[in-house]
């Protein structure tokens, strides 16, 4: 790379091979048909090309632009605005540690520090085997389960440095990993396809992990006359100690 090319790929980008293009064009048509105006399908299409390559490449952007009759500049402007679109190849499992204030204070900062040290990579980097990438993320709407770690955007609630390190070790070893809320992990590419708007077709995936863990049910239990731990007459176990239940 010389000092004037800014690391940008040569334009115009190469198109997808004909068979890939044909397959994706069928999917794109289906997604576009869900909207009154075609351009609304741009975010889904960007998820779709991310599902193909694991990141949004210049080729992917070209494909999206062509489907929607936009310029590649217009599609690029959108792709670079949103943090979920990756701009370079990254891990099969994308590990996000919440370090927004509440999770950070409750231990997210320590989890993120120890995970980076454990994996030998920094923020937004990928392990050499291509298995894992790691990133600190913003609030993921699970503060009652803090500290929270996301893998491929499934919830791993109430984490500790130990549990998070075990989690990434299991992922690297290829062990089956189940989130506390969500379905058995699939690859980042498969996750991106669900995000594009094509439902998860794995049998039973939607049923996994129940309705939520103890925090989701805390108020309901109290309202039914049960007690919570630490409150008088405790009859239910602590949400901190308990995993997610059906």
């Amino acid at each position: 790379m010389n000092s004037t090319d800014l690391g940008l790929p040569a334009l115009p980008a190469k198109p997808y091979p004909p068979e890939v293009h044909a397959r994706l064009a069928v999917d794109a048509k289906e997604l576009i048909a869900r909207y009154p105006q075609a351009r609304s399908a741009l975010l889904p299409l960007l998820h779709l090309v991310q599902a193909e390559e694991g990141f949004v490449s210049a080729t992917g952007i070209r494909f999206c632009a062509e489907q929607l009759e936009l310029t590649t500049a217009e599609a690029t402007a959108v792709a670079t605005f949103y943090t979920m679109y990756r701009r370079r190849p990254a891990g099969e499992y994308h590990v996000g540690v919440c370090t927004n204030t509440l999770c950070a204070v409750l231990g997210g900062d320590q989890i993120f520090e120890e995970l980076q040290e454990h994996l030998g990579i920094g923020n937004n980097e990928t392990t050499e085997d291509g298995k894992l990438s790691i990133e600190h993320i913003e609030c993921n709407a699970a503060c009652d389960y803090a500290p929270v770690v996301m893998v491929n955007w499934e919830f791993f609630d109430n984490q500790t440095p130990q549990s998070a390190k075990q989690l990434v070790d299991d992922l690297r070893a290829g062990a089956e990993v189940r989130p506390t809320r969500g379905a058995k992990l699939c690859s980042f590419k498969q996750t991106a396809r669900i995000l594009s708007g094509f439902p998860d077709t794995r049998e039973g995936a939607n049923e996994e992990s129940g309705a939520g863990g103890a925090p989701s049910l805390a108020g309901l239990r109290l309202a039914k006359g049960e007690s919570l731990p630490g409150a008088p007459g405790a009859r239910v176990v602590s949400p901190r100690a308990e995993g997610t239940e059906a």
Partner: protein
Amino acid sequence: MTATEPAEKLLSPVLSASWDDHRPWSLETYHRHEGYQGLRKALAMDPDALIALVKESGLRGRGGAGFPTGLKWQFIPQNDGKPHYLVVNADESEPGTCKDIPLLFANPHALIEGMVIASYAIRCEHAFIYLRGEVVPVLRRLHAAVAEAYQAGYLGRDILGSGVDLDITVHAGAGAYICGEETALLDSLEGRRGQPRLRPPFPAIAGLYACPTVVNNVESIASVPSILARGKEWFTSLGTEKSPGFTLYSLSGHVTNPGQYEAPLGVTLRQLLDISGGVRSGHRLKFWTPGGSSTPMFTDEHLDVPLDYEGVGAAGSMLGTKALQIFDETTCVVRAVTRWTEFYAHESCGKCTPCREGTYWLVQLLKRIEAGAGEAGDLEKLLDIADNINGKSFCALGDGAASPISSSLQYFRAEYEQHLAERRCPFDPAAATVWADAKQAKAPQPATEREVHA
């Protein structure tokens, strides 16, 4: 209500009532809990009468601003020859806010039923759920629930033989807090960068594709079926006069039992803490947010503030999303505010100068104060910058960024000054973690190891 009232009487589960039932996300279970009964009643009404009913119920937006839901619906011009749209804001991203995600995970049909009712009222035939992308388990449940609703005849053509048509598209975002702002959300849904629009025109006149559009929060819409099924008198019997009804309060942080507590509007934090086991054992409340990080923080002086729109407003903050983030005395307020400010700087869309530049400079100042490198005048400069963002930005993100700064300096100025005077942060972050006390109980932690972990 008094603080000694038993939990059964204080709480009022409606949206969360089915969450411990078998597969509450399924249509089958939803039917067992009066599911789609409200829709049947609504379809038997005239759409204008339906809007009037929701207006008279006093339901107010649960996404933060508290705008009357029925009034929003009424603003949609009728017989204008344009398509109308309903867009549900499920981009829940405000730090501390965690109500819509568990609600959609456990009970997605409450939203779908509410959407059919709202669409019938505003004469909309295509509605959208804009869900933040980072919650695939919820996306999965929404995909399945919408498919179930189509199959059961609650969506599609001629719904329940009424002649009414409605399609719902589930749309996943791609990571941008700003898309929770309703006009940024509309731009994003149109396939653009999520940047707020100048108003007027408001979405009710020129929203999605420049057509009349209602944008409502998940919880607001999901609350509608129960009003239809049980009546507006039942709804107004809950809560306070100006803030009627029930809502999800989300307790998180340094508490014994974090979680979702559905209660009539107007309960107090003291009541919620009393019934749920309080602040974590051996600690005391230091500061808290009533409705996410964008709402000015409160302290232990505010335990008895009624948590409704008026009560919280009168005490100098906003009810917001009812995200009650609790921090005890182990938490450094400068660290907390610095982190929130980094969030706002990261999420600022860049469209307007006060927010884009202001949040950047706030982070620089706060980081050096937290690191013990602050200088005399830094606190005045913080307030000055916050004042130049608040009310002068394009959208509410900027106002939200100023809130933690000004409120923390109002209540904890001495702690900022301590950072300046001692030229260090006087807190040990390890003491604030969930596992800090558990470790201490087992064996006293050597100071050196604590420092390593910090």
